[in-house]
């Protein structure tokens, strides 16, 4: 194994751009930005962060590099490259929102931590070796804990971050222990090698325990029931741009990471949940998590009055559908999973963006705070309509097609002959329930009239561009799914 550093640097140009950007923003803030007016400083720092992500995005789009790097530590295939571009795009959206959200103290640090989080997330998607995977995951997780707790003026923020951190820390410990067992069983850290070594062994109890430990971390990262408990609190307490990043990019990268870990790495011990009686492995466990998430997320969302908690429970429900996509990915590849996760992430980040802007003009805690949004800002109401309808899966938006490809892939496994098929049907039925709470949001935003004077919300250009781009992408991907799905062929 002869590590080729030049190749490594070339392949990791986007990551390098992000880290350099993060360090520069800290340095420049100390040297120059600090002396500016707070408003100007905030704007400068945010623009700088957005610029760093843009540079990284340009690198990510321009380098057509693919293949293994640095031994087999990283592997850039289509999925990794597209996820990298997707995560960077979502990070850019986050900056677009953060630019015009309620201002936080220490903006430079906030920007730097977002950039670090993005670095971790895009490395996660390409990691093929347990050590680097763990490092990338922790880089992302720790950055996200910090982001969740960044608003030090609000006790909710600190509390949310602490809960997120404690559960995340425990999940990381489980994951590390699981990794150590995998290492012990195979003597290797490289995923394809682990897969090859496991092939002749069959599922031993030790392997199964290792699998479950990995799945605990998986459930945590994707906020799947019953490891979802942090999600509603974190979404509610965290500053809005942080919550947007946690809900979108982190989920996308986490899913891709675990897809890579579970199918190419541990595919031998997948088991089968498409038929009865199912063979044991991790797939039945994921099916269990998926079912629990679908049921709990959709039903608990019905009872919510806080809009962020509602989005959190809906995120749990969506996680259930995505896990179904993970199950189906063994047979139909990662394309449906990625399509669903990415379009969900865009819709979620857009919804949080609308919340951030409404919040900046007053209050946006409960559903009732959205009342009369169509008169306060038709643009926000229109964008919210697109995002929420996409989340609800109404054609022709991308959310509909995402559901369609995932359920089609799940039903293709064995029709209605086993749990995977039943889950798909349950998910379709629960979509009807979901429509109810999504329409509650829209009813407030588009139908309910408020008494008294209308306080109009002015939407700054950066946020306008972000929201319109996000909404436009949802329409585009909905009308032309092959723009995204075709990349995987």
């Amino acid at each position, binding site marked *: 194994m002869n590590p080729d550093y030049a190749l490594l640097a070339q392949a990791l140009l986007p990551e390098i751009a992000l880290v350099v950007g993060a360090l520069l923003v800290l340095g420049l803030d100390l040297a120059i930005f600090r002396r500016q007016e707070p408003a100007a400083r905030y704007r400068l720092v945010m623009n700088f962060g957005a610029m760093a992500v843009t540079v990284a995005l340009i690198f990510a789009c321009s380098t057509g590099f693919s293949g293994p790097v640095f031994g087999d530590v990283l592997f850039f295939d289509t999925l990794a490259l597209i996820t990298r571009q997707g995560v960077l795009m979502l990070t850019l959206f986050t900056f677009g929102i953060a630019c015009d959200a309620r201002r936080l103290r220490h903006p430079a640090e906030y920007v730097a931590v977002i950039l670090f989080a993005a670095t971790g997330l895009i490395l996660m998607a390409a990691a093929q070796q347990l050590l680097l995977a763990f490092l990338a995951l922790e880089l992302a997780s720790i950055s996200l804990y910090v982001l969740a707790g960044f608003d030090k003026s609000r006790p909710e923020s600190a509390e949310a971050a*602490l*809960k997120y951190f*404690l*559960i995340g820390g*425990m*999940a990381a410990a*489980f994951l590390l222990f699981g990794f150590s067992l995998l290492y012990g069983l195979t003597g290797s850290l490289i995923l394809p090698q682990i897969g090859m070594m496991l092939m002749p062994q069959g*599922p031993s*109890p030790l392997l*199964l*325990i290792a*699998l*479950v*430990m990995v*799945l*605990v971390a998986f*459930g*945590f990262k994707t906020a799947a029931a*019953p*490891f979802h*408990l*942090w999600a*509603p*609190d974190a979404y509610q307490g965290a500053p809005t741009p942080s919550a947007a990043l946690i809900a979108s990019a982190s989920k996308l990268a986490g899913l891709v990471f675990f897809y890579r870990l579970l199918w190419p790495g541990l595919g031998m011990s997948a088991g089968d949940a498409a038929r009865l009686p199912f063979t*044991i492995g991790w797939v*039945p*466990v994921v099916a*269990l998590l998926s079912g629990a998430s679908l049921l*709990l997320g959709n*039903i*608990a*969302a*019905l*009872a*919510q009055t806080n809009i962020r908690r509602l989005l959190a429970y809906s995120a749990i429900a969506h996680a259930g559908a995505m896990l179904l996509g993970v199950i189906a990915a063994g047979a139909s590849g990662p394309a449906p999973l990625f399509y669903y996760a990415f379009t969900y992430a865009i819709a979620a980040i857009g919804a949080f963006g609308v919340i951030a802007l409404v919040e900046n003009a007053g209050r946006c805690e409960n559903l009732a705070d959205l009342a009369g949004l169509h008169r306060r800002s038709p643009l926000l109401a229109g964008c919210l309509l697109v995002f929420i309808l996409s989340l609800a899966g109404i054609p022709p938006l991308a959310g509909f*097609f995402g559901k369609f490809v995932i359920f089609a892939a799940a039903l293709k496994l064995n029709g209605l002959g086993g749990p995977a098929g039943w889950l798909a049907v349950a998910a379709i039925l629960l979509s009807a*329930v979901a429509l*109810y709470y999504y329409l509650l949001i829209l009813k407030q935003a588009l139908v309910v009239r408020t008494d008294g004077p209308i306080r109009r919300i002015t939407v700054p250009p950066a946020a306008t561009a972000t929201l319109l781009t996000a909404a436009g992408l949802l329409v585009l991907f909905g009308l*032309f*799914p*092959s723009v995204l*799905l*075709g990349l995987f062929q």
Partner: protein
Amino acid sequence: MNVAAQSLWLIPALPLAAAGIGALTPRGGRMLAAGSAITALFASLVLSCLALNTALANPAVHAVHNFAWFDLGAGAVRLGWLLDPLTAFMCVMVTLVGLLIFIFSLGYMKEDANFTRFFCFLSLFAAAMLGLLVANSLLLLFICWELVGLASYLLIGFWFHKPSAAAAAKKAFITTRIGDLGFLLGILWLYDARGTLLFFDGGAGILEHASLAALSGQTVCCGLAAATAIGLLVFCGAIGKSGQFPLHVWLPDAMEGPTPVSALIHAATMVAAGVFLIARVYPLMEADKLLTAVPVHALTVVAFIGAITALLGAVIAVGQNDIKRILAFSTVSQLGYMMLALGVGSWVAAIFHLLTHAFFKALLFLGAGSVIHAAHHEQDIRRLGGLRGSMKTTFATFAIGMMALAGVPFLFSGFWSKEAILHAAHALDGSPALRSFGVVGQLPLAIGLAGVVLTAFYMTRLVAETFFGSARTAEAGDVHENSAVMTVPLVLLAVGSVALGFLGTPAFPWLQARLLGEAEVHGHSLLEGGGLMALSIVLVALGLGAGWALYGRRPRAAAAAIDPLAARAPGVVAALADRLGFDELYAATLGRLSDLLAMLAAGLDRWVWGGAVNVLAGLGRALGLISQGTDESVINASFDDAGAGLRGTGQVYSRAQTGDAHGYLRVTAIAFVIIVLIIVLGGIR
């Protein structure tokens, strides 16, 4: 060639972008909306001309650009664009006529409060229509077809505060939908049979030899070939959209929309879409023409429907008094001629007539719009009169349009295109089935000749009543010629109405040759088939003379004076004015039937499905009650209660979220243990 085909999508995309701009423009941005619409259409016109130039260089080639829209199962749904002379000619016509009408609308809609919305809809219409023309896939064509219908609905109902306009919009939408249902069935059948909807795809398209051979070889019920059945279903769509008998009833009512809309949509372009559709899928329509054992050929049906429509429209037009309605029925009649041409096997004659008709009918409608605008929205020809002196440009151009439509010989385009149709109906070169019928096969020709007389007659009446004599009401007395923004398009269209005819005279049928993909133009002497031409000239003269004798020689004295024709045959004229009672007939039969069906459906809904839902909800509730072991019996189980039950469950779940981080950690650990137990015990088993 390929570059032109690949960038063909820009032609519909530009107006679409303009529609987007128009939609986002606030009411005040009148010039922005109109400017972007006109600029975009002008750019499309330029692109269309370039495309035409490219297509004419290689007229026999169908240049296509296909792409996958999305994957479905093993295959992909593919769409694409197509460039051939037919598409190119139609694009140029639609963009050119559309552009002139857009400009005319600047003046006509000047005072309307919803000016920006109007231009947004117009652009949307143009985009959909152009998309329909460039489509290389029946699916894409159908999507644009429906969008065209939507735009037409929006524009007919543009003055939605008028109940008659709202009703007309609804009627147009629903009536055309009946035809579209057949069209959709045809599309589905075709997709099922061939697995693709692309027209041309390097040998695999539905209009290419392999597919046609397969479809005409396959027999379905009653001995029909599959190609015939699909062709007839597709023709259903054309019947609806092109106002053919028996679905012609929506077209005259559609005149409730603003007059430029009537000109653009219901005269020049949209209604011609049905004719275009049949011309586009012509290989499919004529795939069965050499089969002898089939009970009916698709084209025979087309020919007879066209002939009936041509005569019917002309007859009803005689009895109408509203200037726009007369023109509307004449449109119905002319579309019938086009269908007739398609049916007798000469699709190039149909397209030739389509192109010339687009110009002179747009001219006539805009002329009518000019009259209406000047005469303070007076549309009844009995209450007009004597406009010849006060509106000179409008009169001159309208007269040119009228002579083109009536088929006045030699100078006017309508004469040449109508001649081409009549010759095709006489020769029957493209329709061996009709020829084998003998005398019956000449029936479409006879009907067409009868229509010629009537057309000349009612157009003479229209012009005589409107422009000659003296003003019969105050509105008609107080008219002035409109501004240049309205008259210039009239003049340009008049020029087109004359000039276009010379592209396709029998002596030099350049247009026909190019459409057929021939590089050489084979003209023949005008004397060949001169007998038929002489006959039709005589018939035109007869119609003109009769019209002038009745209406022109002694102009109507007062608005209320009795119609000279009605004085001679009161019953006939009353029936004609009543449009032969088609609307009443439909209301009495189909309307009743649909009421009945609706009642049946409502009953089914209420008693059967509602009951089933109630039973299901009751079951769910019962289960919930058993599991909770709580009170209340299962009597009032309805949807609301089931919803409330679900929400209650949600609250229970939600309450489990205590906010205590310890609880969260414990749940995580316990879930871990449970999963390990399940999986390890399961694995050991």
